[in-house]
């Protein structure tokens, strides 16, 4: 690329980056403010204090909630990575009867708002005695149509002749899937991991209904305790929300390298 285009690219990215990060910085800065200073239209704190963080960690079960969220997010992410990849691959690369209607059926599960699933789920959990367990928090996220669709789309970009070659080499279908196909969609796999982790980390609507013991609250449910009837403790909300982003950023950092690595070893004989 020419030097001038590169400079323009960096300038554009800097502007975009600033807009992207500004509200986040505001949140961080509010979490460092104190007293009525949090209620000011200015992003710069008058006095910086870490007191809000201390209060969040000392006066609430923050660490416990953090752990619960971590357990839920990690287990669902592993489960989704396994099942969604497998199912997405089947829909993209394997011939079978009823493919289109089954795919539409799966896709249709995204078309009903979670809000309307809460009551049936609650009734179900209640009659099976699942309430107040990790299982009740986990089960809605074990696989997702979101991921199946994503993996289907990315497996569609994998050339058939590569799979055919593996088949001739004598691999069975699971082997072809795992050894040949999966490495070719690593970028998508990483994206799926990030977004599944994040989605379950932030889940609120269902967990708040599913559990009624504070010791099994997830982080978003626990944070809701800072919002009250007549006022919200915004200083604590901001501190807790800032803390809550840390693991997601770590997960992102870990996975994003995979995204950019892309597929060097395409196995394509160009």
């Amino acid at each position, binding site marked *: 690329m020419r030097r001038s285009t590169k400079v323009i690219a960096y300038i554009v990215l800097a502007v975009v980056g600033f807009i992207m990060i500004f509200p986040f910085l505001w949140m961080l800065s509010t979490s460092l403010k104190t007293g*009525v200073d949090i*209620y000011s239209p200015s992003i710069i704190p008058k006095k910086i204090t870490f007191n809000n963080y201390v209060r969040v960690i000392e006066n609430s079960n923050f660490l416990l909630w953090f752990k619960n969220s971590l357990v839920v997010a990690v287990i669902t992410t592993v489960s989704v990575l396994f099942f969604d990849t497998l199912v997405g691959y089947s829909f993209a690369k394997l011939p079978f009867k009823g493919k*289109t209607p089954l795919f539409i059926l799966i896709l249709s599960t995204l078309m009903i708002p979670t809000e309307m699933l809460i*009551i049936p789920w609650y*009734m179900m959990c209640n009659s099976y005695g699942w309430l107040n367990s990790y299982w009740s928090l986990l089960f809605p996220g074990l696989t997702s149509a979101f991921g199946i669709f994503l993996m289907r789309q990315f497996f569609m970009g994998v050339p058939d002749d590569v799979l055919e070659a593996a088949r001739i080499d004598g691999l069975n279908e699971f082997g072809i899937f795992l050894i040949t196909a999966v490495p070719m969609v690593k970028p998508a796999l990483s994206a799926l991991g990030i977004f599944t982790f994040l989605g379950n980390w932030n889940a609120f609507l269902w967990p708040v*209904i599913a559990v*009624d013991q504070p010791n099994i609250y997830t982080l978003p449910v626990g944070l809701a305790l800072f919002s*009250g009837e*007549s006022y919200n403790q915004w200083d604590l909300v901001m501190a807790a929300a800032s803390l809550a982003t840390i693991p997601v950023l770590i997960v992102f950092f870990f996975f994003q390298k995979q995204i950019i690595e892309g597929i060097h070893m395409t196995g394509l004989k160009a």
Partner: protein
Amino acid sequence: MKKKILSLILVGLMVVSLLAACGNNGGTQQPSGNTPGNSSAPSTSDEKVTIEYWQYFYESKVNLMDELIADFQQKNPNITVVQKHFPYDSYQQKVAAAISAGTGPDIINLYYGWVPKYVKSGTLQELPASSFSAEMIEKTFAPMVEVNKIDGKYYTIPTAVRTLGLFWNKDIFAANGLDPEKPPKTLEELVEYAKLLTKYDANGNLEIEGLTFQPSGQLHAWFRPVLLKQFGQEPISADKRTVQWNASEGGYKAFEFLVNLAKVDKVGEKDFYTDDATAFISGKAALHIDGSYRLGSLKSQAPDLNYGVTVLPSYNGVETSFGSFWTNGITTNATGAKYDAAVKFLEYLTSVETMKTWTEKIGEIGAKNEIANDPELLKDEKLAPFIEQLPIADSYFYVDEDADRKALMDAIDKVLLNDVDPRQALDEAVKSVQSILDDYWKN
């Protein structure tokens, strides 16, 4: 091809749901849940029983309730009370989910405005006449409690209530040459002071609000019943079936007075500093109408704010305030020994001693009349105005609190944003609230 599949799926779905509909429709008719103490089995005194109490999370309430429960259990060794609490924002959802699944608490803490819905659905049992007769309630409790008398019956009873007071910022008063110890006493004075205290900068940006104006906050509660009554109009008919906000010229006048604060006098603005309480806490509002629960957040967030609290301004010689409360009811889950235990716990929660503790620790005012004369409690000069208004405060009957509030907010928005004639806006609001009431009372 795709079309065919789609239509097949749709037809399939409709068939399944129709079948399911038929299956369900035989319905589990509820065996008249409203009769008190569904069981005739007398509870023997040595039978162990556990009851569940639900409330929303409010740290000091949850902590105090733990203490009260410990004390109660000591006095009643056979009864165990389990407290469960939920984030405020999700409380209604949680309760509804549990009740629709056939579970939930034995005693439930509800906002008074939600009670009619729970009564109509048969979730609550009538309070027993032996402990809570209508006569006794009306004689000993603050008059606002009567708002929840439905068809002559009481289903819930509060420990404590709130009233509205007028907060004023003494520093802003002093800076504008007003006596910082003399808050406005009448509506006329209120408007006069508010105009004087409002400040705009050179560019026409609002800097200090004279009087906060937040329809979603306490403004709607100030309008009905307080302003309406002061302008000579009862907000709702005595049988609680007819909305009367616009039943006389007084009603229209009250509404015009309210919207003109923002439209003509421009003493306050919606969402200034995001909301009314924030504006006042930040020292950007001179006068602000709010409940006693605000004292707590002012103390923790703005300990240096130099402010006072007084009773709501009077008008036409009418002194009144808006009262609201969280109240406790016994659900149909509690039967037999559980029911008896629940009644005992309610008696404990509504004793004068509990009320005094509650007032001191929570800042809500004990619901019985005698609290209003308690010299100990009146010593707190910030709390005193709220307590003093206990005998004159009135509640307002909602069947759907949010819909009712929304109707009024919409009326105000129509006037302020769309320049609709206030009379027409009020008429439309009344129409929509009336249809909610009609819906509630039919069948």
